[in-house]
């Protein structure tokens, strides 16, 4: 090795390393922010070791609940409650997605710059942004509980309203990205406005929009658990009750059911999504990084 290097006729000087000042300043600011955050969050850091000491004990108790004979009392009751709760949560998520999807179609058209009048676009976008910013929980506690009472019905509606914001925005963006060729062709052939919207705009965005709906359904399953904690029924309600009474064996069963069912539903929905958008320009990842988070 060294012989070879020496034999090289002219050695060009090694280029200077680019300055690291910016990266260093960035790192220092970040560390200061994190230390400040640790201090100002008023977190009781002295309790941190409990995670490890208590954690193992509770984990052991949860495991014990799972491995008990599921046909003996009270475990058969636990498993039934867990599965019923999960079914209710999934139903809530499904109905919520359906409501959100149905309302988001006209909203998407109204918010697309190449379809609607600029004023309408602006107004609709502001409306969609407001919905998008507020978490479902807020809709649930403000509007739905007083009207519908505690229950999965209110939860489904809250999920539906919450879904309108993101689905409407994504539909509008998909509409703005279409190929204008078919629109011109339909217009030249004298198609009425409704036919243009249906056969040129809607046909082009349908796969993408369907994929967004399915993705939203996956998110809504998780969100329905959150609504359950405030009393909207489903697995969330069962879970928060189990935590209130510290029934660790029951909690173990519930968490296992949530994990297994969610992974199964996710993989089915993911496979369908993948199949729908196969051959189009969009990728799974484009959908996953959309700001549709909880």
């Amino acid at each position, binding site marked *: 090795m060294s012989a070879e290097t020496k034999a090289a006729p002219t050695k060009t000087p090694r280029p200077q390393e680019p300055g690291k000042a910016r990266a260093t300043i960035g790192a220092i600011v*970040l560390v200061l*922010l*994190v230390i*400040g*955050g640790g201090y*100002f*969050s*008023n*977190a*009781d*850091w002295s*309790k*941190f070791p*409990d*995670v490890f000491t*208590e954690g193992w004990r*509770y984990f052991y108790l949860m495991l014990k609940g799972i491995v008990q004979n599921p046909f003996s009392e009270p475990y058969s009751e636990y498993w039934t409650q867990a599965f019923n709760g999960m079914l*209710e949560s999934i*139903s*809530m998520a*499904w*109905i919520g997605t*359906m409501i959100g999807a149905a309302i988001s179609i006209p909203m998407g058209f109204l918010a697309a710059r190449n379809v609607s009048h600029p004023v309408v676009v602006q107004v609709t976008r502001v409306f969609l*942004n*407001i919905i998008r*910013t*507020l*978490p479902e*929980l807020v809709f649930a*506690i*403000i*509007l*739905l509980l*007083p*009207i*519908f*009472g505690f229950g*999965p*019905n209110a*939860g*489904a509606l809250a999920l539906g309203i919450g879904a309108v914001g993101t689905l409407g925005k994504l539909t509008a963006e998909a509409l703005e990205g279409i190929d204008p060729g078919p629109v011109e062709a339909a217009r030249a052939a004298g198609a009425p406005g409704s036919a243009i919207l249906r056969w040129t705009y809607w046909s082009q965005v349908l796969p993408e929009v369907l994929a967004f709906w399915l993705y939203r359904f996956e998110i809504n399953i*998780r969100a329905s*658990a*959150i609504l359950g*904690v405030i009393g909207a*029924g489903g697995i969330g309600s069962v*879970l*928060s009750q189990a*935590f209130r009474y*510290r029934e660790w064996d029951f909690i173990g069963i519930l*968490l296992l059911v*949530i*994990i297994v069912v*969610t*992974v199964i539903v996710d993989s089915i929905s993911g496979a369908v999504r993948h199949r729908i958008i196969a051959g189009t320009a969009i990728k799974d*990842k484009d959908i*996953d990084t959309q*700001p549709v*988070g*909880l």
Partner: protein
Amino acid sequence: MTVASAAPAPARPRKPAPSRVLIGGLVAVAAITAWAAWEIDFELTSLFENFSNGWVVVEQFLHPNWSYLGNAGTAWMETISIAIVASFFGVAVGLVFAYMASQVTNRSTKLYRVTKWFLSVLRSLPDIAYVLIFVALVGVGSLAGILALFIFNIGIAAKLTAETIDAVEPGPLEAADASGSGTFARARWAVQPQILPNFLSYALYIFELNIRSSVVIGYAGGGGIGQLIQVQFARFNYENVSAIVISMFVVVLIIDQVSQYLRRRLV
């Protein structure tokens, strides 16, 4: 007229019959919807019957008690601090898992499979489940919120980053392999420079998500603005809740704008 006199026009092609997949899919969707609606006793009649009940609450919401916002300052500080700490550590650990969850950087198929499986389990639990677990472990307060979001963030950060790692340019990887670099050097010098802008942008996105989920976190006992909302809501102080919700709207909007500006500069 002219059409009639022209050479016989080719017959209009027959409309293709709807495919079986489509019909099956529509039937399945209709069946699931009907069953789900039945399962949750779906109805909209309450909307008309009990609308006045809701209107009383909405009316209070329309008159927010601005003076209450003075009390919300500390809670906001807490929420933002929780989000900073949780997203910093969450994405840092998530990066390690991302390297393990991509076959580009992880040469052991077994470890890759185990990591993928572990991450999908991690992601399948909603954030509220983590809050409930950590509240049980360390008690009500910000620490439970930080820990819950930390675990939650690992799953998202690892998934998004692993997908970016899958798509890196193979050139630098080949160069690293040709020069005989080990697994770690390869990940650090051939992959990390390529994914860094995307990774930082995901980190900001996760920070935004954490701010958004602060209501949920606090509601379950994880500290911050959500806890304030829960307390005021339980006391039926809807005017105060309204003021907090509006402040939340403003804060989320500002953070979104700043983070979007930074993300545009990164990618």
